[in-house]
Protein backbone atom coordinates (compact mmCIF):
# COMPACT_ATOMS: atom_id res chain seq x y z
CA UNK A 1 0.00 0.00 0.00
CA UNK A 2 1.11 3.52 -0.79
CA UNK A 3 2.02 5.25 2.46
CA UNK A 4 1.02 8.70 3.62
CA UNK A 5 4.03 11.00 3.65
CA UNK A 6 5.39 13.13 6.49
CA UNK A 7 7.21 16.15 5.11
CA UNK A 8 9.19 18.63 7.20
CA UNK A 9 9.45 21.99 5.47
CA UNK A 10 12.50 24.17 5.88
CA UNK A 11 12.13 27.84 5.06
CA UNK A 12 15.55 29.12 4.14
CA UNK A 13 16.85 32.68 4.30
CA UNK A 14 20.52 33.52 3.75
CA UNK A 15 21.38 29.82 4.01
CA UNK A 16 19.66 29.37 7.38
CA UNK A 17 16.34 27.76 8.27
CA UNK A 18 13.62 30.06 9.52
CA UNK A 19 9.94 29.70 10.16
CA UNK A 20 7.39 32.46 10.10
CA UNK A 21 4.38 32.42 12.36
CA UNK A 22 1.47 33.52 10.18
CA UNK A 23 4.12 34.50 7.61
CA UNK A 24 5.78 37.14 9.81
CA UNK A 25 8.08 37.17 12.87
CA UNK A 26 10.98 35.00 11.72
CA UNK A 27 12.87 32.84 14.20
CA UNK A 28 16.13 31.02 13.47
CA UNK A 29 15.91 27.23 13.45
CA UNK A 30 19.31 25.92 12.39
CA UNK A 31 21.51 24.80 9.51
CA UNK A 32 19.43 23.35 6.64
CA UNK A 33 21.87 20.57 5.71
CA UNK A 34 22.22 19.36 9.30
CA UNK A 35 18.46 19.51 9.78
CA UNK A 36 17.89 17.66 6.50
CA UNK A 37 20.24 14.84 7.49
CA UNK A 38 18.62 14.54 10.90
CA UNK A 39 15.14 14.39 9.36
CA UNK A 40 16.14 11.77 6.80
CA UNK A 41 17.60 9.61 9.59
CA UNK A 42 14.47 10.08 11.72
CA UNK A 43 12.24 8.77 8.93
CA UNK A 44 10.96 11.88 7.14
CA UNK A 45 9.53 10.70 3.82
CA UNK A 46 10.47 13.76 1.89
CA UNK A 47 11.71 17.31 2.51
CA UNK A 48 10.71 20.71 1.18
CA UNK A 49 13.05 23.72 1.13
CA UNK A 50 11.57 27.11 0.42
CA UNK A 51 13.91 30.01 -0.29
CA UNK A 52 11.81 32.76 1.19
CA UNK A 53 14.18 35.52 0.19
CA UNK A 54 14.53 34.35 -3.39
CA UNK A 55 12.32 36.94 -5.01
CA UNK A 56 14.34 39.73 -3.48
CA UNK A 57 17.90 38.50 -3.24
CA UNK A 58 20.32 36.57 -5.40
CA UNK A 59 19.58 32.89 -5.90
CA UNK A 60 23.07 31.47 -6.33
CA UNK A 61 23.55 30.75 -2.62
CA UNK A 62 20.35 28.70 -2.69
CA UNK A 63 21.52 26.64 -5.68
CA UNK A 64 24.75 25.88 -3.79
CA UNK A 65 22.72 24.88 -0.75
CA UNK A 66 20.55 22.57 -2.89
CA UNK A 67 23.67 20.89 -4.18
CA UNK A 68 24.98 20.37 -0.61
CA UNK A 69 21.61 18.95 0.48
CA UNK A 70 21.57 16.49 -2.44
CA UNK A 71 25.02 15.24 -1.50
CA UNK A 72 23.91 14.58 2.05
CA UNK A 73 20.46 12.97 1.94
CA UNK A 74 19.01 9.88 0.27
CA UNK A 75 15.31 10.78 0.22
CA UNK A 76 13.44 13.00 -2.26
CA UNK A 77 13.31 16.74 -1.79
CA UNK A 78 11.46 19.66 -3.33
CA UNK A 79 12.77 23.20 -3.61
CA UNK A 80 10.87 26.39 -4.18
CA UNK A 81 10.78 30.12 -3.72
CA UNK A 82 11.12 32.74 -6.43
CA UNK A 83 11.28 30.33 -9.38
CA UNK A 84 10.43 32.37 -12.47
CA UNK A 85 11.20 30.24 -15.51
CA UNK A 86 12.60 27.04 -17.04
CA UNK A 87 16.19 28.23 -16.55
CA UNK A 88 15.72 28.53 -12.78
CA UNK A 89 14.18 25.06 -12.71
CA UNK A 90 16.95 23.51 -14.75
CA UNK A 91 19.60 24.92 -12.39
CA UNK A 92 17.84 23.52 -9.32
CA UNK A 93 17.21 20.09 -10.85
CA UNK A 94 20.81 19.90 -12.02
CA UNK A 95 21.93 20.78 -8.49
CA UNK A 96 20.12 17.61 -7.38
CA UNK A 97 16.58 18.66 -6.43
CA UNK A 98 13.90 16.09 -7.30
CA UNK A 99 11.00 18.48 -7.64
CA UNK A 100 10.49 22.19 -7.80
CA UNK A 101 7.64 24.14 -6.30
CA UNK A 102 6.18 27.17 -8.04
CA UNK A 103 3.66 29.60 -6.64
CA UNK A 104 3.40 33.29 -7.65
CA UNK A 105 5.06 32.81 -11.04
CA UNK A 106 2.51 30.11 -11.97
CA UNK A 107 -0.41 32.33 -10.95
CA UNK A 108 1.01 35.16 -13.02
CA UNK A 109 1.78 32.89 -15.97
CA UNK A 110 -0.13 29.59 -15.80
CA UNK A 111 1.53 28.35 -18.99
CA UNK A 112 4.73 28.00 -17.00
CA UNK A 113 3.20 24.82 -15.55
CA UNK A 114 2.72 23.20 -18.97
CA UNK A 115 6.14 24.39 -20.15
CA UNK A 116 7.78 22.77 -17.14
CA UNK A 117 5.69 19.64 -17.56
CA UNK A 118 6.80 19.31 -21.18
CA UNK A 119 10.45 19.99 -20.46
CA UNK A 120 10.96 18.12 -17.18
CA UNK A 121 7.85 15.99 -16.65
CA UNK A 122 4.90 16.63 -14.35
CA UNK A 123 6.45 14.44 -11.61
CA UNK A 124 8.79 17.29 -10.68
CA UNK A 125 6.25 20.14 -10.86
CA UNK A 126 4.69 20.96 -7.50
CA UNK A 127 2.23 23.86 -7.56
CA UNK A 128 2.13 25.57 -4.17
CA UNK A 129 -1.12 27.33 -3.35
CA UNK A 130 -1.47 29.78 -0.44
CA UNK A 131 -5.14 29.91 0.50
CA UNK A 132 -7.01 32.39 2.68
CA UNK A 133 -10.69 32.37 3.66
CA UNK A 134 -12.33 35.67 2.66
CA UNK A 135 -16.04 36.44 2.19
CA UNK A 136 -17.13 32.82 2.42
CA UNK A 137 -14.63 31.34 0.00
CA UNK A 138 -10.98 30.34 -0.27
CA UNK A 139 -8.85 32.70 -2.36
CA UNK A 140 -5.31 32.40 -3.70
CA UNK A 141 -2.64 34.69 -2.26
CA UNK A 142 0.75 35.27 -3.88
CA UNK A 143 4.20 36.64 -3.00
CA UNK A 144 4.56 34.77 0.26
CA UNK A 145 0.95 35.42 1.20
CA UNK A 146 1.34 39.20 1.00
CA UNK A 147 -0.80 39.88 -2.08
CA UNK A 148 -4.41 38.75 -2.58
CA UNK A 149 -5.82 37.64 -5.92
CA UNK A 150 -9.39 37.22 -7.09
CA UNK A 151 -8.75 33.58 -8.01
CA UNK A 152 -10.70 30.95 -6.10
CA UNK A 153 -8.54 28.16 -4.72
CA UNK A 154 -10.68 25.39 -6.23
CA UNK A 155 -10.55 27.00 -9.68
CA UNK A 156 -6.81 27.42 -9.51
CA UNK A 157 -6.11 23.87 -8.27
CA UNK A 158 -8.24 22.45 -11.06
CA UNK A 159 -6.54 24.56 -13.68
CA UNK A 160 -3.04 23.82 -12.38
CA UNK A 161 -3.82 20.10 -12.52
CA UNK A 162 -5.10 20.35 -16.09
CA UNK A 163 -1.97 22.26 -17.12
CA UNK A 164 0.24 19.43 -15.83
CA UNK A 165 1.05 19.93 -12.15
CA UNK A 166 2.29 16.72 -10.54
CA UNK A 167 1.28 17.63 -6.98
CA UNK A 168 -0.48 20.43 -5.11
CA UNK A 169 1.09 21.85 -1.96
CA UNK A 170 -1.89 23.44 -0.25
CA UNK A 171 -1.28 25.89 2.59
CA UNK A 172 -4.06 27.45 4.57
CA UNK A 173 -2.75 30.83 5.66
CA UNK A 174 -5.52 30.99 8.26
CA UNK A 175 -4.22 27.82 9.91
CA UNK A 176 -0.48 28.32 9.37
CA UNK A 177 1.37 28.91 12.62
CA UNK A 178 -1.71 28.42 14.80
CA UNK A 179 -0.96 24.77 15.79
CA UNK A 180 -4.73 24.21 15.94
CA UNK A 181 -4.84 21.64 13.13
CA UNK A 182 -4.90 21.58 9.33
CA UNK A 183 -7.69 23.05 7.17
CA UNK A 184 -9.53 19.73 6.94
CA UNK A 185 -12.49 20.66 4.79
CA UNK A 186 -10.40 22.66 2.29
CA UNK A 187 -7.90 19.80 2.00
CA UNK A 188 -10.66 17.26 1.47
CA UNK A 189 -12.35 19.41 -1.18
CA UNK A 190 -9.15 19.83 -3.17
CA UNK A 191 -7.97 16.25 -2.73
CA UNK A 192 -11.27 14.95 -4.08
CA UNK A 193 -11.32 17.53 -6.87
CA UNK A 194 -7.94 16.76 -8.45
CA UNK A 195 -6.45 13.42 -9.49
CA UNK A 196 -2.95 14.28 -8.25
CA UNK A 197 -1.49 14.08 -4.74
CA UNK A 198 -2.27 16.88 -2.31
CA UNK A 199 0.21 17.89 0.38
CA UNK A 200 -1.59 19.58 3.27
CA UNK A 201 0.23 22.39 5.02
CA UNK A 202 -0.45 24.87 7.78
CA UNK A 203 -1.71 24.33 11.30
CA UNK A 204 -0.09 21.08 12.50
CA UNK A 205 0.30 21.18 16.26
CA UNK A 206 0.19 17.55 17.33
CA UNK A 207 0.08 13.96 16.03
CA UNK A 208 -3.72 13.86 16.03
CA UNK A 209 -3.78 16.70 13.50
CA UNK A 210 -1.83 14.52 11.05
CA UNK A 211 -4.18 11.57 11.58
CA UNK A 212 -7.11 13.89 10.97
CA UNK A 213 -5.74 15.38 7.74
CA UNK A 214 -4.96 11.91 6.35
CA UNK A 215 -8.33 10.38 7.21
CA UNK A 216 -10.93 13.18 7.17
CA UNK A 217 -8.87 15.53 4.97
CA UNK A 218 -7.89 12.82 2.43
CA UNK A 219 -4.41 14.35 2.16
CA UNK A 220 -1.63 12.30 0.57
CA UNK A 221 1.04 14.02 2.61
CA UNK A 222 1.25 16.31 5.62
CA UNK A 223 3.77 19.11 5.85
CA UNK A 224 4.93 21.07 8.87
CA UNK A 225 7.88 23.14 9.94
CA UNK A 226 8.32 24.65 13.38
CA UNK A 227 6.80 21.80 15.36
CA UNK A 228 9.44 19.54 13.86
CA UNK A 229 12.30 22.05 14.07
CA UNK A 230 11.68 22.75 17.74
CA UNK A 231 11.10 19.09 18.56
CA UNK A 232 7.48 19.55 19.63
CA UNK A 233 6.65 16.50 17.51
CA UNK A 234 9.33 13.89 16.93
CA UNK A 235 8.93 12.12 13.59
CA UNK A 236 9.50 8.56 14.93
CA UNK A 237 6.82 9.15 17.60
CA UNK A 238 4.44 10.63 15.04
CA UNK A 239 4.89 7.62 12.76
CA UNK A 240 4.21 5.14 15.57
CA UNK A 241 1.10 7.11 16.51
CA UNK A 242 -0.20 7.04 12.92
CA UNK A 243 0.58 3.33 12.47
CA UNK A 244 -1.43 2.61 15.61
CA UNK A 245 -4.31 4.45 13.96
CA UNK A 246 -4.04 2.00 11.01
CA UNK A 247 -2.76 4.69 8.68
CA UNK A 248 -0.22 3.33 6.17
CA UNK A 249 3.13 4.80 7.12
CA UNK A 250 6.64 3.84 6.05
Amino acid at each position, binding site marked *: MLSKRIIPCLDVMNGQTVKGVNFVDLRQAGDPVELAKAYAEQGADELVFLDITATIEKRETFVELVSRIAQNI*NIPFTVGGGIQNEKDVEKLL*NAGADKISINSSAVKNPNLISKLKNQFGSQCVVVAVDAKWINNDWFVFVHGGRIPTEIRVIDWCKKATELGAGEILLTSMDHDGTKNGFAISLTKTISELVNIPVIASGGAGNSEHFAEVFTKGKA*DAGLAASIFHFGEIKIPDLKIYLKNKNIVIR
Partner: protein
Amino acid sequence: MKVAIIKYNAGNIHSVKIALNRLNINPIITDNKDEIISSDKVIFPGVGEAKSAMEYLKKKNIDKIISELKQPFLGICLGLQLMCNHSEENDTDCLNIFDSNVKLFPPKLKVPHIGWNTISNLKGELFNKIDENSFVYFVHSYFAEISNDTTAETNYILPFSASFQKNNFFSTQFHPEKSGNIGEQILKNFLEL
Protein backbone atom coordinates in the same frame (compact mmCIF):
# COMPACT_ATOMS: atom_id res chain seq x y z
CA MET B 1 35.29 0.42 -10.79
CA LYS B 2 34.15 2.21 -13.94
CA VAL B 3 30.44 2.95 -13.82
CA ALA B 4 28.69 4.58 -16.78
CA ILE B 5 25.38 6.37 -16.55
CA ILE B 6 23.74 6.50 -19.96
CA LYS B 7 23.08 10.10 -20.88
CA TYR B 8 19.88 10.80 -22.71
CA ASN B 9 17.14 13.39 -22.76
CA ALA B 10 15.58 12.43 -19.45
CA GLY B 11 15.72 14.01 -16.04
CA ASN B 12 17.02 12.55 -12.82
CA ILE B 13 20.45 11.53 -14.13
CA HIS B 14 22.16 13.84 -11.64
CA SER B 15 20.35 12.29 -8.68
CA VAL B 16 21.77 8.89 -9.60
CA LYS B 17 25.26 10.34 -9.96
CA ILE B 18 25.03 12.05 -6.58
CA ALA B 19 23.74 8.82 -4.98
CA LEU B 20 26.74 6.93 -6.36
CA ASN B 21 29.03 9.70 -5.07
CA ARG B 22 27.60 9.01 -1.61
CA LEU B 23 28.81 5.41 -2.08
CA ASN B 24 32.26 6.71 -3.09
CA ILE B 25 31.78 5.90 -6.77
CA ASN B 26 32.39 8.58 -9.36
CA PRO B 27 30.44 7.55 -12.46
CA ILE B 28 30.81 8.95 -15.95
CA ILE B 29 27.71 10.29 -17.68
CA THR B 30 27.97 9.47 -21.35
CA ASP B 31 26.14 8.73 -24.59
CA ASN B 32 29.34 7.45 -26.20
CA LYS B 33 29.01 3.81 -27.31
CA ASP B 34 32.62 2.82 -26.63
CA GLU B 35 32.60 4.33 -23.16
CA ILE B 36 29.42 2.46 -22.32
CA ILE B 37 30.74 -0.85 -23.68
CA SER B 38 34.02 -0.58 -21.76
CA SER B 39 32.40 0.15 -18.37
CA ASP B 40 32.19 -2.40 -15.54
CA LYS B 41 28.62 -1.42 -14.70
CA VAL B 42 26.03 0.51 -16.66
CA ILE B 43 23.10 2.45 -15.20
CA PHE B 44 20.19 3.56 -17.33
CA PRO B 45 18.14 5.99 -15.22
CA GLY B 46 15.58 8.55 -16.07
CA VAL B 47 12.31 10.23 -15.58
CA GLY B 48 10.80 11.39 -18.83
CA GLU B 49 8.73 10.48 -21.85
CA ALA B 50 9.18 7.13 -23.62
CA LYS B 51 8.97 8.12 -27.29
CA SER B 52 11.45 10.98 -27.27
CA ALA B 53 13.80 8.94 -25.07
CA MET B 54 13.77 6.03 -27.57
CA GLU B 55 14.30 8.45 -30.45
CA TYR B 56 17.35 9.91 -28.71
CA LEU B 57 18.80 6.43 -28.08
CA LYS B 58 18.27 5.52 -31.73
CA LYS B 59 19.86 8.72 -32.95
CA LYS B 60 22.96 7.93 -30.88
CA ASN B 61 22.88 4.25 -31.93
CA ILE B 62 22.76 3.27 -28.26
CA ASP B 63 19.54 1.27 -28.67
CA LYS B 64 21.36 -1.47 -30.58
CA ILE B 65 24.28 -1.89 -28.18
CA ILE B 66 22.26 -2.06 -24.94
CA SER B 67 20.90 -5.57 -25.49
CA GLU B 68 24.39 -6.78 -26.47
CA LEU B 69 26.01 -5.65 -23.20
CA LYS B 70 27.40 -8.37 -20.93
CA GLN B 71 28.21 -6.37 -17.77
CA PRO B 72 25.64 -5.77 -14.99
CA PHE B 73 23.12 -3.25 -16.26
CA LEU B 74 20.54 -1.42 -14.15
CA GLY B 75 17.53 0.40 -15.59
CA ILE B 76 15.70 2.76 -13.25
CA CYS B 77 12.12 4.05 -13.66
CA LEU B 78 11.78 5.09 -17.32
CA GLY B 79 14.90 2.95 -17.87
CA LEU B 80 12.94 -0.13 -16.77
CA GLN B 81 10.03 0.78 -19.01
CA LEU B 82 12.26 1.28 -22.06
CA MET B 83 13.75 -2.20 -21.48
CA CYS B 84 10.29 -3.78 -22.01
CA ASN B 85 8.72 -4.67 -25.38
CA HIS B 86 6.35 -1.80 -25.82
CA SER B 87 5.02 1.23 -23.97
CA GLU B 88 1.55 2.70 -24.28
CA GLU B 89 3.15 6.10 -23.72
CA ASN B 90 2.87 7.55 -27.24
CA ASP B 91 2.74 3.98 -28.62
CA THR B 92 6.48 3.39 -28.36
CA ASP B 93 8.38 0.25 -29.35
CA CYS B 94 11.07 -0.35 -26.77
CA LEU B 95 14.22 -2.45 -26.33
CA ASN B 96 12.66 -5.95 -26.00
CA ILE B 97 14.86 -7.05 -23.09
CA PHE B 98 12.11 -7.89 -20.60
CA ASP B 99 9.07 -9.72 -21.85
CA SER B 100 6.50 -7.22 -20.60
CA ASN B 101 4.43 -4.31 -21.79
CA VAL B 102 4.07 -0.87 -20.26
CA LYS B 103 0.61 0.58 -19.69
CA LEU B 104 -0.97 3.70 -18.23
CA PHE B 105 -2.47 3.26 -14.76
CA PRO B 106 -6.26 3.28 -14.90
CA PRO B 107 -7.36 6.44 -13.04
CA LYS B 108 -9.00 4.63 -10.12
CA LEU B 109 -6.61 6.32 -7.70
CA LYS B 110 -4.39 9.33 -8.13
CA VAL B 111 -1.95 9.18 -11.02
CA PRO B 112 1.06 9.55 -10.98
CA HIS B 113 1.80 6.98 -8.32
CA ILE B 114 4.00 9.17 -6.10
CA GLY B 115 5.49 8.16 -2.80
CA TRP B 116 6.65 5.22 -0.71
CA ASN B 117 5.18 1.81 -1.41
CA THR B 118 6.17 -1.76 -0.54
CA ILE B 119 7.95 -4.38 -2.66
CA SER B 120 7.22 -8.09 -2.28
CA ASN B 121 8.01 -11.53 -3.79
CA LEU B 122 11.64 -10.40 -3.97
CA LYS B 123 13.98 -12.53 -6.07
CA GLY B 124 17.62 -12.33 -7.09
CA GLU B 125 20.84 -10.69 -5.95
CA LEU B 126 19.58 -7.14 -6.27
CA PHE B 127 17.46 -7.76 -3.17
CA ASN B 128 20.13 -9.34 -0.97
CA LYS B 129 19.64 -8.17 2.65
CA ILE B 130 16.32 -6.51 1.70
CA ASP B 131 13.25 -7.54 3.71
CA GLU B 132 9.94 -8.39 2.08
CA ASN B 133 7.55 -5.42 2.15
CA SER B 134 10.30 -2.82 2.46
CA PHE B 135 9.21 0.67 1.46
CA VAL B 136 10.82 2.28 -1.59
CA TYR B 137 10.11 5.52 -3.45
CA PHE B 138 8.08 5.59 -6.68
CA VAL B 139 7.17 8.36 -9.14
CA HIS B 140 5.47 7.13 -12.31
CA SER B 141 2.25 7.17 -14.34
CA TYR B 142 2.91 4.07 -16.45
CA PHE B 143 3.55 0.57 -15.10
CA ALA B 144 5.07 -2.64 -16.48
CA GLU B 145 2.94 -5.79 -16.35
CA ILE B 146 4.09 -8.72 -14.25
CA SER B 147 5.90 -11.35 -16.33
CA ASN B 148 8.33 -14.27 -15.97
CA ASP B 149 11.16 -11.73 -15.63
CA THR B 150 9.54 -10.00 -12.63
CA THR B 151 11.71 -10.03 -9.48
CA ALA B 152 9.64 -7.71 -7.25
CA GLU B 153 5.99 -6.71 -7.19
CA THR B 154 4.15 -3.66 -5.93
CA ASN B 155 0.45 -3.01 -5.70
CA TYR B 156 -1.03 0.34 -6.69
CA ILE B 157 -4.46 0.19 -8.33
CA LEU B 158 -3.22 -3.22 -9.54
CA PRO B 159 -0.14 -5.41 -9.00
CA PHE B 160 2.75 -4.45 -11.30
CA SER B 161 6.45 -5.16 -11.77
CA ALA B 162 8.61 -3.15 -9.37
CA SER B 163 11.68 -4.94 -10.70
CA PHE B 164 12.80 -7.25 -13.52
CA GLN B 165 15.89 -9.34 -14.03
CA LYS B 166 17.02 -11.27 -17.07
CA ASN B 167 20.65 -12.46 -17.13
CA ASN B 168 22.85 -9.37 -16.58
CA PHE B 169 19.92 -6.98 -16.98
CA PHE B 170 18.41 -5.60 -13.78
CA SER B 171 15.83 -2.90 -13.33
CA THR B 172 13.68 -1.10 -10.78
CA GLN B 173 10.53 0.92 -11.33
CA PHE B 174 11.24 2.68 -8.02
CA HIS B 175 14.14 5.02 -7.38
CA PRO B 176 16.83 3.31 -5.28
CA GLU B 177 18.78 6.57 -5.33
CA LYS B 178 15.91 8.20 -3.39
CA SER B 179 14.78 5.27 -1.27
CA GLY B 180 16.73 5.97 1.90
CA ASN B 181 18.89 3.20 3.39
CA ILE B 182 16.92 0.44 1.62
CA GLY B 183 17.66 2.03 -1.74
CA GLU B 184 21.29 2.51 -0.81
CA GLN B 185 21.58 -1.23 -0.05
CA ILE B 186 20.01 -2.08 -3.43
CA LEU B 187 22.53 0.16 -5.21
CA LYS B 188 25.35 -1.47 -3.21
CA ASN B 189 24.04 -4.91 -4.20
CA PHE B 190 24.16 -3.87 -7.84
CA LEU B 191 27.67 -2.45 -7.54
CA GLU B 192 28.85 -5.68 -5.88
CA LEU B 193 27.55 -7.92 -8.73
